[in-house]
């Protein structure tokens, strides 16, 4: 009985030690080890306990290691996110463009400093207020408002006028895009440019241009009257004094008449230039082959005198255009081709036309003196011909051609080299709606 009591007590003690050991291990002391005291089941348990403790220790260490790694990664990601957020925030806030974010009612939740500066209210005043409250009373913001309020997706462009606190009315050109927030609500982020100044400059430019053209027109017109008198009076003088004029007088009279004629032509040209694009020009269907042949006939005297071989392509498109304008275009180009023939070359002029899906294309080729490439850029400018004194002309013909073509959305250009002839090309867009 005593033996069994003692055995129980020893067993109990060892179990208590095991229990205490388990408590220590569970408290985190993985270095705790139980000393084996015999060779029985309890001892087996103790050994298993010790082995488990070691495994636990390793697992715990691994776990801790993983935790540290994880925390490191979280730290890195957080830093990256903060950096990215700071980056985009600083981009948004320092951007010269206006950035404004609104919800589907148009209430502002985001405004960058450029937007705040323009509007002139503080961030606190802006956020939560309604964007449409800053829209001008004109209808310029209607489509932008519609884009925000209606069920739109994607992105779109709008110009609208905003009323600001300090800068008056500003015209803003917006690029707006629909996004959805984490709750799936529609938001609109818009990036805008203040184009008020650009518009003002463009208008100024237009006005200045108009002034210059009006000036050009009135000067040419006012000079036209005395020029007409001059020509008429010279005519009368010539008729009356024919028999009294000797060869010397004849020479000077002819020079005076020629100069008066040039002035008159110049003024007509200037008047013509300032008229292009003004007023309505009736368009009719024109057979370009007929038109060009008529122009050739008008210039037949000179063509025969210079023995020019003229060839006009039979297959040329009929186009809708103002007849007098198209006449001016071809007449000027053909007269140029006739004028600038070169010595010792049998002169030749070839004219043709074709059409693509979108354009009519015409060419006027001559094998004349050609134009040095350095003049190609300036040749359409007013009076550029005056640089080359050896050839007569008013220097306004090509300006008229270019004005007419440009005014009708077309292009005119040339291929030429000095001594190798010239080809002028005219491209006119086909009318979309007839």
């Amino acid at each position, binding site marked *: 009985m005593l033996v069994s009591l003692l055995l129980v007590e020893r067993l109990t003690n060892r179990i208590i030690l095991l229990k205490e050991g388990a408590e220590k291990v569970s408290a985190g002391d993985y270095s705790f080890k139980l000393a084996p005291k015999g060779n029985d089941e309890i001892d087996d348990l103790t050994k298993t306990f010790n082995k488990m403790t070691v495994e636990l220790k390793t697992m715990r260490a691994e776990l801790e290691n993983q935790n540290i790694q994880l925390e490191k990664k979280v730290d890195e990601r957080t830093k990256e996110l903060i950096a990215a957020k700071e980056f985009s925030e600083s981009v948004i806030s320092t951007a010269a463009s206006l950035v404004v974010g609104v919800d589907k009612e148009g209430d502002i939740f985001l405004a960058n400093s450029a937007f705040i500066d323009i509007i002139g209210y503080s961030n606190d005043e802006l956020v939560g207020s309604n964007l449409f409250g800053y829209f001008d009373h004109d209808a310029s913001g209607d489509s932008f408002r519609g884009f925000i309020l209606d069920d739109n997706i994607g992105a779109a462009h709008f110009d609208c006028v905003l009323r600001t606190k300090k800068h008056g009315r500003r015209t803003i050109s917006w690029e707006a895009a629909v996004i959805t927030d984490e709750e799936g609500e529609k938001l609109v982020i818009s990036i805008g440019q203040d184009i008020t100044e650009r518009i003002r400059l463009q208008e100024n430019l237009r006005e200045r241009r108009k002034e210059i053209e009006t000036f050009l027109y009135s000067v040419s017109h006012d000079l036209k009257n005395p020029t*007409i008198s001059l020509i008429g009076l010279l005519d009368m003088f010539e008729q009356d004094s024919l028999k009294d004029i000797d060869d010397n007088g004849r020479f000077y009279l002819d020079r005076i008449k020629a100069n008066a004629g040039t002035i008159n032509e110049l003024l*007509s040209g200037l008047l013509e230039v300032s008229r292009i694009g003004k007023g309505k020009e009736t368009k009719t269907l024109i057979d370009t082959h007929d038109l060009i042949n008529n122009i050739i006939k008008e210039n037949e005297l000179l063509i025969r005198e210079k023995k020019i071989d003229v060839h006009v392509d039979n297959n040329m498109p009929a186009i809708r255009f103002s007849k007098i304008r198209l006449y001016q275009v071809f007449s000027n180009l053909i007269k140029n081709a006739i004028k600038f023939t070169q010595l010792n070359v049998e002169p030749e002029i070839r004219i043709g036309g074709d059409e693509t899906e979108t354009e009519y294309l015409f060419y006027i080729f001559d094998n004349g003196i050609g134009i040095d490439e350095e003049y190609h850029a300036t040749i359409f400018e007013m009076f550029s011909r005056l640089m080359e004194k050896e050839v007569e002309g008013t220097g306004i013909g090509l300006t008229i051609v270019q004005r007419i073509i440009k005014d009708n959305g077309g292009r005119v250009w040339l291929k030429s080299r000095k001594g190798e002839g010239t080809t002028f090309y005219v491209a006119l867009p086909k009318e979309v709606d007839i």
Partner: protein
Amino acid sequence: MMVNACTILLVEDNPDHVLLTLEGLKRGGVINVVKVVNDGQEALDYLYRRDKFDDDEAYPMPALILLDIKLPKKSGMEVLKVIKEDENLKNIPVIMLTTSKNEEEIARSYSYGANSYITKPVTFKEFTATMKEMQFYWCVTNTLPPQTGTRA
């Protein structure tokens, strides 16, 4: 109708152009009486027999009007409009005088009822060509006998 009964009214403000037009016509053999007024208002006063113009002998009603487009006080266009809208005046042929061929201006004159136009300086050649075109030639020249049945 008597040839010399055809008075021409010239409405022109530029004295040189008046001189040249009169000379141009005279040298071509147009012997009609040409009355000259210098602005648009005066032209209307003449046609409506106002003030001094209320004198059929000194200022006979014209059978033809040469009307400059650019005029002081009332432009040639305005005068043309008044003439062509007036039942009593609209049958008088009106030839517009222009300094340069301006398609739009010419189209506008025609839409207001102008009968023709001449580019200045007015020469006999262009004048008679225009008359012929208007089939009005018989009235204003002594170089050809009056033709019968040509008036449109």
